[in-house]
């Protein structure tokens, strides 16, 4: 059974249908790419999955349950974590505390336990710190734990967002343009991190305009344009798909190096 299934998903903004009956399935363990021109509705699809928007029609089935309409935090605790297209870190908090926010949903002790400092609360706090450090190490920011998030370089901020998402112990990780603003070398490092995430058994769904990343990292792609799915398949198939070339990749010429 697939881990995530979108079934005729619809989202309207006023008169604009940003997502129009989009249907696809993501198999557990895959790295799955969602691509398409600017404004095609990719981010909107993500927001529908993560509960930031409520669909006007259709369903999102995650791990066998229908999750549309649930609050974002509920969906996170079910095992869907995300990063944002424009970085949304907690700027004035340390990298460590940013990652701890991810660990939050796996903890239970509340305000009264905190005031009393119960043994359970202390143990839980310690476990959370261990988890956070592990994830920071995983993305290579272990030595920056105490740096304020806005003091990190742009690329590292992107990685920190990934670490924060990983700390929620997700089954599905959703990345919105993780390589945006990265140069090629940084992108290569990111590809490697995505591979290691996959190796941990986490399914990845990503949006990206950087074709070198998409082609290297993804096992399967879906392409949307004007809110509709126009193609689906293996990267090699997509690359030569006429519709995709016309709408998204552009005609191949000697300059194709600029984007591939």
């Amino acid at each position: 059974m697939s881990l995530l299934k979108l079934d005729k998903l619809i989202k309207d903004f006023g008169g604009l249908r940003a997502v129009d009956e989009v249907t696809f399935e993501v198999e557990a363990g895959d790295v799955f790419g969602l691509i398409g021109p600017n404004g095609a509705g990719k981010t909107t699809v993500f927001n529908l999955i993560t509960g930031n928007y409520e669909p006007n029609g259709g369903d999102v089935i995650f791990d066998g349950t229908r999750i549309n309409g649930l609050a974002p935090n509920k969906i996170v605790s079910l095992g869907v974590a995300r990063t944002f297209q424009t970085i949304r870190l907690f700027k004035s908090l340390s990298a460590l505390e940013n990652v701890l926010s991810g660990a939050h949903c796996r903890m239970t002790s509340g305000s009264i336990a905190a005031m009393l400092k119960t043994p359970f609360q202390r143990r839980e706090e310690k476990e959370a710190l261990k988890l956070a450090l592990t994830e920071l190490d995983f993305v290579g920011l272990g030595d920056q734990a105490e740096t304020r998030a806005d003091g990190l370089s742009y690329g590292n901020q992107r990685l920190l967002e990934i670490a924060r998402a990983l700390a929620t112990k997700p089954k599905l990780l959703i990345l919105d343009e993780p390589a945006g603003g990265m140069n090629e070398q940084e992108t290569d490092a990111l590809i490697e991190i995505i591979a290691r995430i996959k190796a941990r058994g986490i399914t990845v769904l990503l949006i990206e305009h950087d074709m070198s990343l998409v082609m290297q990292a993804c096992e399967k792609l879906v392409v949307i344009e004007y809110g509709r799915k126009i193609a689906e398949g293996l990267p090699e198939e997509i690359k030569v798909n006429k519709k995709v070339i016309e709408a998204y990749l552009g005609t191949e010429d000697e300059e194709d190096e600029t984007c591939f």
Partner: protein
Amino acid sequence: MTRKAIYLLLATLLAVSPAFLNAYWVDVLNNVGMYALLALSLNLILGHAGLFHMGHAAFYAVGAYTTAILNTTYGIPVLWLMPVAGLMAGLFALMVARPIIHLRGDYLLIVTIGFVEIVRIALVNNVFGITGGSNGIFGIDRPFLFGYKIRKPHEFFYLIWGFMVVTVFLFHRLENSRFGRALNYLREDDVAAEGSGINTTHYKLIAFVIGAVWAGMVGTIYASKMTIIAPESFNFWESVVMFMIVILGGSGSIRGVILGAFLVIGLPELFRGMGAVSDLINSVFSGFGVTLNLDFSNFSQARMMIFGAAMVIMMIFRNEGLLPPLPRKYPLKKIREEMS
């Protein structure tokens, strides 16, 4: 280490200060203490959760009136009523905050201002016939502690500042917990907080509730200290004062908020004392046969003006507040060792 030493020194100084001060100055310290407690409770909502809340006096009022009504009609000792007052204020907060918790920034601000005004007007109009209207309620008992009746400023000093010690201790723990962090997350970016699995609505409400519970308990102290309460003591301006203390002191910082209370409440009193200062100088000089006619007492009419200017200046020079919060400390070394 040195910071701890400084705090300890300051605390000791404060603790022994009533021995050297007259009732008036002790009462000023009591006022500072009460406002500091109120501001600390507001700080959870405004400073930590970043919710623009300018209606804290409403919760304070609910606590004070709960105490006053239950004490004067059933004769329940006031200190027993402290948790009841807290509870009532908390419940009230839960009730009123629920429908408006999703409002943003300035819209929330005006709604919370609306709360204080509605509460005050309701009190003035004697809702349910139990609030005594604009007269308020009088004849509230003094607190008894271990059979000892607390009456004088010096005695209230230890009650108020004792409660402060407890509050600081608990709030410090609260701040440095999962709960405190959650509030900060939603202050920084509530979409990202939701996206990290934090139920922001829940935490906003809890922040309101805990803040209200504390304000309600301070309400108990206030009611028993004044023995008479009236709606005017809980007007919008009171909320503004608490708000200023938090921002001026440093939102999210316990030590900042306490310092803020000293300045916002203490400064105007200090300026008022200027008349006495000139009298003192005059009398010293007349002791030497020199007649001086200094009169700083006009200064006391200008004291609020100077205070206003001082606030602007302090904000300009310390725009993050006087003592902004320090980053939380985590025992990373220890954890690392355990990990490896």
